[in-house]
């Protein structure tokens, strides 16, 4: 949730990096599956708040990162299925999150 302040943050980061560009055409976001960010909600707010800025009419592109865990007992790395977080190799449950909570603006395309 909180996709409105998030959209505002994305806009402010993008504008800060746009430099001499006349227009921002596309924004490339990286979102982990466990980041609790909803892409559709960001898109909804984005269309509203980007009006009248360099980013008006730009498209948001979401690269999703699957959740990935590493088992502390057997070092196995795995992608959990259906929120079942136990190690798929040894059944252990002392697992660490290796990927899946990312949330960043990777790059923008400008002209």
């Amino acid at each position, binding site marked *: 949730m909180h996709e409105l302040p*998030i959209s505002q943050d994305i806009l402010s980061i993008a504008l800060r990096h746009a430099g001499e560009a006349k227009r921002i055409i596309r924004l490339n976001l990286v979102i982990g599956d466990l980041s*609790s960010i909803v892409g559709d909600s960001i898109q909804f707010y984005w269309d509203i708040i980007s009006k009248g800025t360099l980013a008006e009419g730009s498209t948001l592109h979401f690269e999703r990162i699957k959740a990935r865990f590493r088992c502390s007992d057997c070092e196995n790395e795995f992608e959990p299925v259906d*929120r079942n*977080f136990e190690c798929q190799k040894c059944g252990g449950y002392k697992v660490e999150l290796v990927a899946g909570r990312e949330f*960043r603006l990777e790059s923008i395309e*400008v002209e």
Partner: protein
Amino acid sequence: MSKTVPIVEQILSANDQIALQNRSQLDASGIFTINLMASPGAGKTSLIMATIQALQNEHRIAYIDGDIASSIDADKVATLGVPTVQINTGGACHLDAVMLQRSLPQLPLTKLDLLVVENVGNLICPSSFRLGAHRNVLIASVPEGDDKPYKYPVMYHGVDVLVLNKMDVLDAFDFNLDYFQRGVEILNPGLIFYHISCKTGEGLAGWLEWVRAEVAAFKKGGGDGYEIR
């Protein structure tokens, strides 16, 4: 002709940057800070009051409470004679670093060892907003049920200590302690657990020892080595 501008910047970094500023200020003032989170009614204020009553002769403690409305919690805690700040968010469902930053000047920062921040009762949003504290403590309670770690994985991740409250009513509920504990440990290897009852005092001694040990370690070693919570 279009070109790609690489950025690679975390979203919500604005909040994180202020959280860092808060942490610097707390570290410089020598104040060990706990961010306490839970569902509404789990026992945050009760645990805080029991903690202050037990430790206020050993440490100089202050309290900040976040609630959407009312000063019920800050008023209760103020009766114990410690400095308190009530943040009314007006609608925001969590505390964030800006709110904490605005509260700090209201406290006697040069005269404190321990700050306990009681976050808004909410099992979803607080985990997304760092404040600048040293430790995250989550209070769960028996009546909430043993499946919450599985249903709310984001909130149950990034927890340093889990306190399970209302152990005095365990028999009245179908609560499987192993199932619950495993759900939290999955997301937090090495997590510290306390089973307590604020009502009867069961288990409180262990929790208080943890607080004492943390304050002592912080006094000795400073703020490095703690995640920004």
